[in-house]
């Protein structure tokens, strides 16, 4: 696997507060990298820096060897990195289809408004299970629906790297399983590399090839889910005694029940039944 997105000594300071402190990361092509850590650890700030929403105080980020740190968000998207938001931000007064179209038209440097754009957008809506909602407004979707919309919109920009910020949070177990399977499909069927911030342990441990742990702005561990789950520092900072006791000795990456493809489409249909 070759390195696709690399960050070196990324720091982001807000006045005296070191939200992110000299963090290195390395995402390989085709990989799913989990990013976990207690609240306030700096995960979303790191995402914001990666995506260009805010510039780093110091450090370098390179995508396929090209340095992109400090680039504005839209340029980062054109280069191939797209993020979703922790609290979903659909364009409220645009239809579901129009939301995805925005990503499709503007995801690359030149406006892609070729005749196949609409078909491409519809295809994405079908992929996430929202095609029968295409003329509705985001407010008419369930939360899971809106999260799927956000993923579809991000996918419309044709990214090489997808940054998912707590995409499973706030969903019930069925919805969460469905979305998790969707994420696995994104990697499997579309070859997109993913970094995901997540608090729902089953999801992130079940999906990730590797996991990175932040605490108070610093990276404190990195490795396979099993390695990280059994890492003393991580347990101390975040996972808590209960989880460690329960899982000690087992391999969290075998939580396959959370990622089988057939669960995805079932859950997708359940999502649409709501509202």
């Amino acid at each position, binding site marked *: 696997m070759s390195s696709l997105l690399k960050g070196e000594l990324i720091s982001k300071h807000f006045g005296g507060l070191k939200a992110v402190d000299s963090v290195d990361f390395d995402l390989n092509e085709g990989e799913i990298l989990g990013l976990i850590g207690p609240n306030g650890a700096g995960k979303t700030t790191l995402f914001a820096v990666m995506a260009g929403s805010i510039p780093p105080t110091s450090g370098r980020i390179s995508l396929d060897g090209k340095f992109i740190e400090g680039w504005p968000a839209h340029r980062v998207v054109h280069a191939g990195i797209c993020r979703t938001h922790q609290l979903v931000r659909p364009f409220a007064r645009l239809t579901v289809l129009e939301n995805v179209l*925005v990503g499709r038209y503007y995801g690359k440097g030149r406006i892609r408004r070729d005749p196949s754009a609409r078909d491409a957008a519809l295809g994405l809506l079908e992929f996430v299970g929202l095609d029968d909602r295409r003329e509705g407004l*985001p407010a008419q979707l369930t939360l899971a629906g809106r999260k799927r919309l956000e993923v579809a919109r991000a996918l419309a920009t044709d990214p090489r790297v997808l940054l998912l910020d707590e995409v499973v949070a706030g969903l019930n177990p069925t919805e969460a399983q469905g979305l998790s399977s969707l994420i696995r499909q994104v990697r499997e069927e579309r070859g997109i590399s993913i970094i995901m911030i997540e608090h729902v342990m089953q999801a992130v441990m079940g999906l990730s090839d590797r996991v990175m742990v932040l605490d108070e702005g610093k990276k404190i561990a990195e490795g396979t889910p099993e390695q990280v789950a059994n890492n003393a520092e991580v347990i101390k900072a975040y996972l808590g005694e209960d989880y460690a006791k329960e899982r000690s000795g087992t391999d969290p990456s075998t939580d396959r029940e959370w990622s089988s493809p057939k669960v995805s489409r079932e859950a997708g249909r359940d999502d649409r039944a709501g*509202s």
Partner: protein
Amino acid sequence: MKALTERLPPWLPSRVVIIFLVGFAIVFALPFFLPIPETLHGLMAQAFIFMSAALAWNWLGGYVGQVSFGHAAMFGVGGFVSARLLLAGAPLIMAWLAGGVVAAIYGLLWGHPTLRLRGPYFAIATIGVGEATRLVMTFWTSFTGGSTGVSLPIQGGSQYQMYWLTLELLAGVVAASYVLRKSPLGLSFLAIKEDVEAAGDVGVNASSYQDLVLFLSGLVMGLCGALYASYFAFINPGDMFGFDRSIGFVLMGAVGGIGTILGPVLGAAVLVIIQETLIASFPDLYLGLYGLLLVLIILFEPLGLSGLILRAARLGGYRPSASVAAGGLSSSAAKGRSPGAGPGRVLKEPPT
């Protein structure tokens, strides 16, 4: 004919093109069939100018969502640049175009840094720009003539010249309004209006696109100012750059229906009519009347007059698509009114 239809982009239905062309032809040819008295076609020319200006204001205020209380700055620049050029002997169309371009550049000058601001901050900045422009221009007597203003040479040409030229401008602006609203470009404006950061996060270069809208808006405002100057043959900075003039554009857009195409046209028409009828008897009253109108509209029908028309149409069975509702402020005509009382924190996540 069919070949032409197939060449049109998907968002431009052929029936729209036909209605537009036919409508334009009818209004254009009117003077040949009905002898229109000078006062009336003069009034219509004036109305056409303000309809164009209102539409152009709406590109920034309604499409992108950046309400400007200082658009008179560009209107005035266009007027005076054109007037000075005409006095120096430049041909008519050249002078007008120059007025438009200079106004557009001026708009970009103050607009590029301020468009970064959202909502009320941008609006207040525009008040500042508008007023600062007025003060400086009034002071710059060699350019604007100070309080005595500038008189233009009377233009020769046919009786209906202004009528036709202003109509042509309006046609161009209406066409541009349609393109800017319905095309994929228009979608980016709506996205910027909804959530400028999220728009950037999916690749929309909000800064450049807003600059584009402002440039175009300024261009048309400048042209309108130039036409206005030629029409009245006399302008002064207090009137051209005045806060009242900027207010006028806001009112035309807001009362008519922010974000729609019909709206500003209606708003401008109504304003011009009211102004003509009331100005003789109650010169200061009409502004207050508009204030009242604005208050009522915001409270009950945020899409203004075109919203009322939409309501009537719905009663007649017309079902607008969601994107029609999306064009303006959140209209109660298209969605149910949310309980507005209380500390109305607008939730980012609508309740499921």
